């Protein structure tokens, strides 16, 4: 492992940092500049539509995860519990509500503006509905638009579902945007943004697929959550986003060509001992410690489902600028958590095989039923279908009470031992063949 000080900031990192800084700066000045603010969720977000109306997005989940990383979430969660929220429910919601109760101070230390529009694109998680009902009560003056996104229960997106979505967009969602911003819907602008999205999506897929190389040049989970930021949140469709992914692709491709391993907070990894596919969101409160357990053991995550919450582009889906509303509808319905369980299993199986993973690991999140319910069955199915050893750990997104370092480390160490033994057995078998 290289010395931390050797870790150089790559150009893509600088681009992303600047994008974020500008975003928060714009948000802090939204009231002065007259920009309207839209609160919405990450999965199935309609960012191109939001940007086409020159609105600024705020993602409550991102606030929550940043609060987790900044060690603020414990206090926020406590405050939400004090106001009557149960210990048992999604901690993202409680963290966000707690943050609002404490003045809604964003990661830059400045207050986030109140929403002008609450856009509930209710994709892949039932809790979003509850969350927005709560937000609606906290911000009674904000306009609220609901986009009910049908679940892919039959493992496909049907024409009726698309029509339902388009009708909602046309009759309810877009008119609310127009009302809030005082602007007319500009289809040409939306098409241009979608066109940029398509190009960024192409780069994003190529970047993720570079992890098929041995060794993988990226960690598709721990670093993946940084890489996915622009495309999954506030920037998809923008020129900067496209620039970012072009640059990132260039860098990762170079790393792959040079057979370099992923960059971690402590520098570049030197050995790839295990290649893993991971299901479930990461823990944010102890993110670095958590990641370190993996890279210390030479474990690289070559594919993850969490990076697909904003779209499973590697299955071929791309935005379609020619049919903008249909494109948004299909995009919303295609996110990972909107896939049914058989589709999720198929996807993971494909990852294990195509990325030549040594193992499959689930990080089960205590407060997230959308991911967690059914994971043990997913695990069995993957074990049966691929034969790779499966592992299971539990933590939470932003509630530090449910991150037990010792427990997780012990479990992972045993899991890595199991992977090691299997490698030995497999190599012996291949010698005898």
């Amino acid at each position, binding site marked *: 492992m290289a010395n931390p000080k050797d870790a150089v900031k790559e150009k893509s990192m600088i681009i992303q940092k600047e994008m974020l800084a500008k975003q928060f700066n714009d948000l802090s000045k939204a009231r002065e500049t007259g920009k309207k603010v839209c609160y919405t969720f990450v999965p199935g977000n309609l960012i191109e539509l939001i940007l086409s109306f020159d609105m600024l997005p705020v993602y409550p989940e991102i606030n929550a995860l940043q609060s987790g990383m900044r060690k603020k979430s414990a206090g926020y969660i406590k405050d939400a519990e004090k106001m*009557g929220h*149960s210990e048992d429910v999604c901690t993202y919601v409680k963290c966000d509500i707690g943050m609002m109760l404490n003045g809604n101070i964003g990661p830059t230390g400045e207050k986030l503006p109140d929403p002008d529009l609450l856009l509930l694109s209710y994709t892949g998680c039932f809790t979003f509905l509850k969350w927005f009902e709560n937000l609606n009560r906290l911000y009674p003056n904000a306009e609220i638009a609901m986009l009910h996104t049908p679940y892919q229960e039959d493992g496909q997106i049907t024409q009726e579902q698309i029509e339902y979505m388009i009708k909602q967009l046309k009759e309810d969602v877009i008119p609310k945007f127009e009302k809030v911003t005082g602007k007319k819907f500009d289809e040409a602008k939306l098409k241009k943004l979608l066109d940029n999205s398509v190009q960024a999506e192409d780069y994003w897929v190529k970047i993720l697929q570079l992890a098929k190389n041995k060794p993988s040049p990226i960690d598709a989970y721990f670093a993946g959550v940084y890489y996915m930021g622009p495309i999954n949140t506030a920037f998809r469709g923008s020129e900067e986003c496209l620039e970012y992914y072009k640059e990132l692709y260039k860098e990762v491709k170079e790393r792959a060509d040079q057979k370099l391993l992923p960059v971690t907070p402590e520098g570049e990894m030197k050995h790839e001992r295990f290649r893993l596919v991971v299901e479930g969101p990461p823990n944010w409160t102890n993110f670095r410690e958590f990641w370190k357990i993996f890279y210390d053991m030479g474990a690289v995550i070559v594919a993850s489902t969490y990076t697909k919450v904003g779209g499973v582009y590697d299955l071929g889906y791309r935005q379609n600028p020619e049919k903008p509303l249909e494109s948004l509808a299909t995009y919303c319905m295609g996110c990972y958590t909107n896939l049914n369980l058989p589709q999720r299993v198929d996807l993971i199986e494909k990852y294990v095989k195509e990325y030549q993973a040594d193992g499959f690991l689930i990080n089960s999140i205590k407060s997230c039923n959308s991911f967690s319910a059914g994971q043990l*069955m997913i695990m069995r199915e993957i074990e049966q279908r691929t034969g790779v050893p499966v592992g299971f750990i539990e933590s939470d997104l932003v509630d530090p009470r449910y991150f037990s370092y010792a427990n997780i480390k012990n479990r992972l160490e045993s899991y890595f031992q199991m992977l090691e033994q299997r490698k030995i057995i497999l190599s012996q078998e291949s010698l005898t063949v």
Partner: protein
Amino acid sequence: MNNIEEILSWCEKTAFDLNFNHAKQWKNNDSKRVIVGYLPIYVPREIIHASNGIAVGIMGTGDRKQIIKGDAYYQSYICHLPRGIIELALDNNLEGFDGFLFPAICDCVRNLSGMFKLSKKGKFQRYFDYAQNFDPFIGGTFYKHEMEKVLDDIYNVNGIKATKENLNNAIKLYNINRRLIEEIYDIRQKYPWRLSAVDTYHLLRAGICITVEEHNEILHKILNVIRNERGEAMDNIRVVVSGSFCEQPPVGLIKSIEMAGCYIVDDDFMLGSRWIQGDIADNTDDPLGAITDAYLNQSTFSSCYYDVGNPKGKRLVELVKRREADGVIFSAASFCDPALLDRPEMQKECDVAGVPHINFQYHENTGQFKVIKEQAGTFSDSIKLWA
């Protein structure tokens, strides 16, 4: 079976027969009959009836079955209901069911639909999405499609298409059913001692395991008895129980609440049977349209129904007033996100309206009610004192 005690004991037995023998016997009498199992909360049972089927509510195992395999399918922080249902499926209790409907109530039930798909339980497994857009041309059209999918599923099993006549007839029968149930609640509002909350619960829960015709007959018989005075009035307070719409509270909990001095004058235990408020038009050329219309405009308030514009807290307070209740008991299953996430706002509305409330959490197989009884007892005493 005319004696009320006999009827109620039959209802209890039928409600908790986890092999659903009554429905299976009904099916066995005709090769074209189907059983469609549905999870909480609501599905339009009319469409199943009209397709020569029986809709059977699968409300979990309660404390009637030891969960062994089901626990291996769920992490400890997931509610109890789906593990019981998986146990039933793995133990072949649901053998003979032709299909399953998983209403859009939460991500656990949603993902359970996928687990049934993966393990190929039944001939169809369908997630039944509730429209969350209430415009008739948008959400209405979508909802109608959802029903049509179910009708196609059943048609693929038994070859029977639900005709307009059959649909209208089914609507008629369920209208009667809802009216009779409401009459029981109305009587219990004034004279809760005439039929205990536990008996009412058994009566309603049996109704989701038998045909609507049979249930209507039973309800008639019970009503004929409780329209007249029986039992003995106690100095109890009146409460509405809220939050138990999916994973059901153990019967011991319901009993404990009443024994602690609280008459339950309304609740959401068997919410699916009471989902549509009032009648659905039963003589139209478009019965699916009529059911859709009722879903859009006559649904009760619920945690799985987007409530902006008509918040459920306010509707709960209205219900409390209509039932002349003294307070609310929020009673939700542990780890039930929909119920628990709604609770603070609903409590706030109660506070604003001056309605006292307490809350519990339970698992369907909770066995100890001492604490709950004490809490409910203190609640009852304090209300009596202030009153």
